[in-house]
């Protein structure tokens, strides 16, 4: 990295090198049998240079020629992409947590053993199809720039994802366990999964109309993608955010607080700096319904004459190759503040409504405007506080700027979400449901 930075420094005003190396493996057990085992060792380098107020970028996964990478960044300057920011200098960051060796040592047999325990436990009580996916990985990431910043971090993760499929379908209820140390899926969570499965076995028909709707943690991204797009510095700079000129204004119910907390000790991906080397700390977007802050990277912070918020990350909605994507404003390790109602009490309080456990089509529709219209996959129908069964061919639609003003209650506990972040379930009133 240092050699690459030195070469880039000679031809630019400022330069930054980002590198990443991931070593991961995964196991898929479908219908109770190990089907796929795969491994991956991937690396990559991204270079950004600033010269005469312009930026040049280049990347490669395989650093065969430093000179070629620098040449590509110089060629990129011909695009005359303006950049008015500087790379940050060094700053004090808390000492990073060092992963223990338990995940480095995990092999295919260990993944199989931990997945097998989940399968055995579920098999004792459930007759339907069970799929279990598991993975482990370690990652080394580093950033170095010509202003003296030199940060690196090592991280480790493992996860197990258990799915119970309803008969004759691919529709499933799912539970997710993740850890930064080798561990086993907690049995009490598997008990919750089996109870959910039993509740969803009967099919229920529902009327079309407005009713109460619960978004569970794994479906919260449906709402949060809309908010992330609106709070992004890019949308503000492009003057298309519905939150434009609404800072410090009450936009949502006072039951709604959204923040990112990368330093949270409970976070598997705990980290103290973003992908541009800016200190990453708790960053609140909405506090008790009031819009507080934008989500910015270095570029949009400079364009909007704001301070960077430690939220510049490489990667997109669909993942993507980390080094090929420039850092963009993104909230990492997001949280919705818990409320004061248990999930069970939340359901008991519903006279007529739907619990959304999975969605199809969250990426469709006018995301920037806050509109959503998602298929239930699955959704459970609730009447007089009791789950009546799973809905066939149902959709839930609305606009986040309406529905988040109709929050009835927020669950008192946060859960890891498969799409990242930790959220409670949220009960919304008066949401449009369409069904056959």
């Amino acid at each position, binding site marked *: 990295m240092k050699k690459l930075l030195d070469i880039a420094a000679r031809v630019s005003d400022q330069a930054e090198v980002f590198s990443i190396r991931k070593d991961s*493996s995964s196991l898929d*057990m479908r*219908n109770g*049998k190990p*089907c*796929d*085992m*795969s*491994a*991956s*060792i*991937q*690396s*990559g380098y991204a270079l950004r240079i600033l010269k005469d107020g312009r930026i*040049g*970028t*280049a*990347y490669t*996964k*395989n650093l*065969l020629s430093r000179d070629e990478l620098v040449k*590509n960044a110089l*060629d*990129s300057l*011909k*695009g005359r*992409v303006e950049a008015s920011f500087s790379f940050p200098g060094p700053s004090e960051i808390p000492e990073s947590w060092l992963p223990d060796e338990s995940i480095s040592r995990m092999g*295919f*047999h260990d993944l199989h053993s931990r997945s*097998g325990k989940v399968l055995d436990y579920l098999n004792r009580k459930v007759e339907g*199809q069970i*799929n279990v996916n598991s993975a482990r990985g370690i990652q080394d990431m580093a950033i170095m720039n010509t202003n003296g910043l030199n940060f690196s971090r090592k991280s480790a993760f493992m996860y197990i994802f258990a799915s119970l499929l309803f008969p004759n*379908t*691919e529709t499933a209820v799912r539970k997710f366990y993740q850890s930064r140390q080798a561990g086993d899926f907690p049995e009490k969570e598997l008990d919750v999964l089996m109870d959910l499965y039993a509740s969803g076995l009967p099919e229920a028909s529902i009327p079309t109309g407005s009713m109460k709707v619960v978004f569970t943690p794994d479906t919260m991204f449906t709402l949060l993608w809309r908010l992330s797009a609106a709070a992004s510095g890019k949308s503000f700079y492009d003057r*298309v955010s*519905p939150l434009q000129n609404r800072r410090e204004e009450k936009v949502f119910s006072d039951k709604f607080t959204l923040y990112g907390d990368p330093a949270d000790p409970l976070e598997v991906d705990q980290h103290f700096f973003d992908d541009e080397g800016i200190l990453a700390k708790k960053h609140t977007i909405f506090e008790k319904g009031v819009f507080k802050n934008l989500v910015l990277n270095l570029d949009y912070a400079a364009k909007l004459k704001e301070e960077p918020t430690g939220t510049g990350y490489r990667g997109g909605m*669909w993942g993507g*190759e980390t080094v*090929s994507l*420039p850092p963009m404003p993104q909230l990492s390790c997001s949280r919705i503040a818990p409320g004061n109602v248990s999930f069970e009490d939340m359901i008991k309080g519903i006279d007529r409504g739907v619990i959304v456990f999975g969605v*199809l*089509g969250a990426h*469709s*529709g*006018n995301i*920037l*405007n806050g509109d959503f*219209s*998602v*298929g*239930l*996959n699955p959704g459970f129908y609730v009447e007089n506080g009791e789950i009546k069964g799973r809905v066939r*061919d149902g*959709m839930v*639609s*609305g*606009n986040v700027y309406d529905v988040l003003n109709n929050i009835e209650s927020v669950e008192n506990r946060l859960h890891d979400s498969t799409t990242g972040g930790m959220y409670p379930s949220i009960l919304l009133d008066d949401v*449009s449901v*369409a*069904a056959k």
Partner: protein
Amino acid sequence: MIDRLKSMISGVEADFIDIRYEIKTETKIGFAGREIRSAGSNRTDGYVIRVGKNGGFSSATVTREEDVPRALELAVEGAETIIATGGKKSVLASVPVVVENIKLVLDGDPREISIDDKIELLRKYNDLMLEQPMIETTNLYYIEIGREKHYVNSEGTAVSEEIMTTNIAGEVIAKHGSLVQNIRVAIGGADGYNRLLSREDVFVKKAEIAARLLDAEPVKGGTYNVILSPMLAGVFTHEAFGHFSEADLIEDNPSLREKMLLGEQLGSDVITIIADSTLPDQIGYYVYDDEGVAVKPVTLMDRGVLTGRLHSRRTASAFGEPVSGHTVAEDMRFEPIIRMGTIYIKPGSLTLDNLLAELGDGLYLIDGKGGQTSGENFTFGAQYGFKVEGSRIGPMIRDINIMGNLFTTLQNIEAIGNDMELSERGGCGKGQLNIKSALGSPHILIRNMVVGGV
């Protein structure tokens, strides 16, 4: 390169080994509004290895050549572990041994066009959209992706193939007060740079639609009879039916395999669906898949009867059906999985006016805005649409998403138009991105679709 790959896998104790080495080149230029926000060209590479041993099958991907021996160890270990833990046994269907080098044939090689010329073409289309009334901004990209693939397996197959896709794609955003509406735009293909030239009309039309959406009504949720435009019917074909024709998606679900038996009448007798990546000049075109198997046209459904399926060598053997050459990876970071290339509904005999007459009252929904499938359930969004009353096209509507069950919907397809359009851009995400997923259809009429709305 082929000889180097052969030497890398020689001496490994396994029943089957293949290795794919790929060089990927990428040029991207991006405008947001009138500002250029990104520009650059990059080149990278990597290796994908698959091993079959004692019936177990496993894969490993690595970036660096020095990690190839470790990848071989991991893939062998994975294959052995699958069998040792009572996992699925895999047999590969027999295919001809092939030694071939497929060269690119392009109408205008984008690698010979300067980045300045590409920027100017993109700027011209971008400016055209920005000049239209009510347009607030744009996000428009030039994307050129080249893959130089070299494949070798232990059976003696050695195939090299180059593919190149060029697109100009993005969105145009209209705004009035706090209401924001967007429309997607995409042109391009796999047959060269010249396809991108002289396409001004596409960009102007999309900007006009985005502006009109500001006055459109949100659709009211409910069950409707609908006519889908060719692009939207193509999304339906891809999302609802196409993925279900990919053998790996139903392979390990016994109840779904039972439903998807070849010879079953699953749809109404008006519908015929074909997967054909040999169609020239389409974004879905290729010659060999990433298992070294030549791609073949497959009639998936013939007048409502299930007649074919898309396979890898492994699933073809498991199902006892012919290989089809549809095992494709996004790039050198991924093992190949079963993917559609070009999929479309065969045109019928009715004009759009005929279909409107048959519809009576309902919705006319136009152009796709993403979709998703899970088993037999699917959703997809429409970019815009119109109410239809008494067979006449009425006011514009927006915020349209459709959900359905594949089997019910296939039976509810009532009529097929006589026109035909194929998409110019792919982008299916099934764990990996497939930029060569072309789709298309004539207009089609479907009864009783659930439409989500406000």
